[in-house]
């Protein structure tokens, strides 16, 4: 197929259709929010009918689900996991702790704004969000994919220095591998 703009548009539509109906999630259950995932996945709410299901490893996953608060220690692992995931990849921040620190707003070891460190596509508010809210968040993510604006990896790549500077500001002992982008 010729790589002209019209045919590319058709490819984009098909890609977005396929992507938004197979969101495989990697649940990073650091906080209390992980307890809402089983009820979202099991028979009553049955997220799998929307194409949402669990993935075993970062490389197989499309969505990184950050359920709850992140400490400096766990943020390190999240960054590593995020960088291991293959594009296209999306991040959902889950619960008020990921949004603004929640009840840990004055903690010495808990980050307060997840989007300063990795690009976040959708935030789900609540403490904790009920499965309905989680499904609504996934619906929102599907809409963003359809509209073509869920471009986290692109933002991460373009603003890589800014993200890295923020990450290095709180992770003092930096011993990550340097990736080639």
């Amino acid at each position, binding site marked *: 197929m010729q790589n002209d703009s019209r045919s590319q548009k058709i490819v984009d539509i098909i890609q977005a259709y396929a992507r938004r109906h197979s969101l495989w999630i990697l649940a990073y259950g650091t906080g209390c929010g992980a307890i809402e995932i089983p009820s979202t996945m099991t028979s009553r709410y049955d997220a799998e009918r929307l194409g949402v299901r669990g993935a075993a490893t970062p490389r197989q996953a499309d969505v990184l689900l950050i359920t709850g608060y992140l400490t400096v220690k766990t943020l390190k692992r999240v960054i590593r996991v995020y960088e291991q995931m293959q594009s296209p990849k999306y991040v959902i921040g889950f619960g008020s702790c990921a949004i603004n620190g929640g009840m840990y707003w*004055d903690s010495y070891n808990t*980050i307060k704004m997840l989007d300063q460190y990795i690009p976040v596509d959708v935030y789900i508010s609540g403490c904790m969000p009920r499965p309905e809210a989680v499904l609504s968040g996934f619906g929102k993510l599907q809409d963003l994919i359809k509209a073509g604006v869920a471009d986290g990896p692109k933002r991460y790549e373009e603003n890589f220095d800014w993200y890295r500077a923020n990450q290095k500001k709180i992770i003092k002992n930096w011993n990550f591998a340097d990736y080639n982008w």
Partner: protein
Amino acid sequence: MDKGKRFDTIRARIKENFVLSQDKIYADKNRLDISVSKQRTPAILFFCKEQLGFIHLMHVGIVDWIEDGTLELVFMLWSPTEKLRVYIRTRLNRENPVMENMDMIWPQLNTYEREFKEMYGIDFKGLIAAEEFLLEDWDGPPPMLRDFDTEAYAQEVFHTRPGREDAQDVREAIIKRSQEEIPDFAKKYSRQ
């Protein structure tokens, strides 16, 4: 034999061997509190475990007495045969908290000591453990000490999302809206 008598016996046996700075029986709470110097602490823990049957270390607590300039360690022991508790308290200098390693008495003390080292800066001489336990990449002062201002630290280090500046007390906001009055017992918790 009733509880008070059993406690008296235990106290007498401890007093034969150790000089106690303070001791008190709380028979209703099923416990005997004794305070000893830091040098005698390992010996008295050994004595309680080997001779008196307090074989179970329930918990180790720590209190930061900033007014007295001391850190108080509380070793909470339980005897499964006697069904009694003994709390052994000892105080360390807050400026330079040093203590011997005691994880040969109960191996689980190792975990407590690692945590105290990180969170309160207590130096356990001879402790064999990894450098980092709960806090990674931490180069500030021990964060659980009372003079550590956690809010100021968080404001300085982490990005804060705007929008919480006008956060209101939920109870007061609701009461204001519904034209009620705060009851007297709740007034002392008021933010205004």
